[in-house]
């Protein structure tokens, strides 16, 4: 991918700075195609996000995607993986921060840093049950409030509990 040579050094320095700052926490990292991908441990998440936003200039949180690793080759060994997609505007640099979290555990909420994390975290909670500490109003966003269970978990039956049509 020739055209990515230009931004690789910048990302590589960023990776070095990140690795330096959070020595223990960076488990794996790869730089390709204009995207820095980092796997962090749970407790380094908040400070890493703050570092990426304030120092590295990733000013937009585009998406928070949660995954259920039940039954699949889970890299981190934990049940859920939450992936933060950060964007740097202006420009086209992207950062992927992946964090593993166990069934009952919770993550530090990114809402104090990025306003757009509000509903994305509520959706992750609603669909997977991943709790976010410090979220102003962690409620279900799609399912009715009195709904039990989290639909997007692998062990949730596709046709729903009441045996769909």
């Amino acid at each position, binding site marked *: 991918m020739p055209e990515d040579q230009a931004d690789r050094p910048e990302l590589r320095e960023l990776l070095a700075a990140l690795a330096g700052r959070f020595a223990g926490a960076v488990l794996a990292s790869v730089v390709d195609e204009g995207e820095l991908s980092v796997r962090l441990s749970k407790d380094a998440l908040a400070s890493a996000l703050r570092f990426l936003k304030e120092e590295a200039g990733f000013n*937009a*949180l585009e998406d928070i995607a949660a*995954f259920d690793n039940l039954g*699949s080759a889970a890299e981190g060994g934990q049940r859920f993986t939450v992936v933060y997609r950060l964007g740097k505007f*202006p420009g086209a640099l992207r950062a992927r921060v992946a964090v593993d979290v166990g069934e009952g555990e919770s993550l530090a909420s990114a809402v104090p840093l990025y306003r*757009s994390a509000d509903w*994305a975290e509520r959706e992750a909670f609603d669909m997977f049950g991943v709790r976010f500490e410090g979220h102003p109003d962690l409620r279900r966003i799609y*399912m009715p409030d009195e709904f039990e269970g989290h*639909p997007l978990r692998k062990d*949730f039956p596709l046709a729903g509990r009441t045996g769909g049509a």
Partner: protein
Amino acid sequence: MELREYDLNMGPQHPSTHGVLRLKLAVDNEVVLGVEPVLGYLHRGMEKLWESLTYTQVVPLTDRLDYIAALSNNLGYCLAVEKLAGIEVPKRARYVRVVLAELQRLASHLAWLGFMANDIGAMSVLLYAFEAREDVLDLFEEYCGARLTIHGIRIGGAVRDLDTPLVSRIRAVLERIPKRLEDVRALLDENRIWKERTVGVGRIAAAAAIDYGLTGPGLRACGLAWDMRKDIPYSSYDDFAFDVPLGTNGDVYDRYLVRLEEICQSIRIVGQALDGLPGGEFTAKVPRVLKIAPGEVFHTIEAPKGVLGFTVRSNGTDKPERVKMKSPSFINLQALDHMCRGNLFSDVVGILGSLDIVLGEIDK
């Protein structure tokens, strides 16, 4: 008698909430103190359904996300899967896709124009905008047989080639649309009532827009040039010369102007794509049973409503392990509360219209 503000319920069955969206408004004698959208009325559990379908079977379901711009959803998903599977799409297919995507942006912006004008009271503009949109929908019907849930873009390319009669019909439609737009602009652009209802209403600063994750025309109306077609080009968009219209103070009027200008730019792009249509295959050879090695990809396109992203994770089988959709309307709607504060109750309708949200894409 102590005065207290009361909360007003707007929706989910309300004439101007573009689908089933419920807004809880804290209102103090018509001045809006806070807006809390309640979602989930159109939640069909798409992401759960996708996990039980093969990669190709998911494509018709993406039609039903942003049902005003079905082709953009198809394109977004197919590009993500092709990047994951490493499928090389031939140049002609990329050009056909650009033509379809830009025509879809045209139709989506015309539908938005009709809805928003009708919400603010100019009901004739709804009919003029939809009459222009009918021509574009007829093109889709001519191309692959459906007008709304088009399913015209497949993994690897497009469903059919652009033959010469269709190309000439497209060019004819592209001439007619600017004339209908002139009528609308003459009715609205300089009209004092329209400007009274839109200038300075629902204003959002550039920094706040980025913080709220606003994308698409809403962000460009604040003067920030973030357009995926230019920043992270896909499907050979960098072959075409077009400019990204920008607003200045990020209010409803600027979003109106930006979208109207984008319609003209889309017409320009389709013209260039048709002129430079290369020879060759209109789709790549894709195995009927597509198995993709384990991996994960996040690919974004510039959908009419904003940056539409698909995260696809594969596990080696022919069914995706997880498809997460980053919906532009879902993120843009979060900024509604920030925009509505301090405005009047009747502005909420105008601001919601200027955000151009579609509930199918929000509730998934």
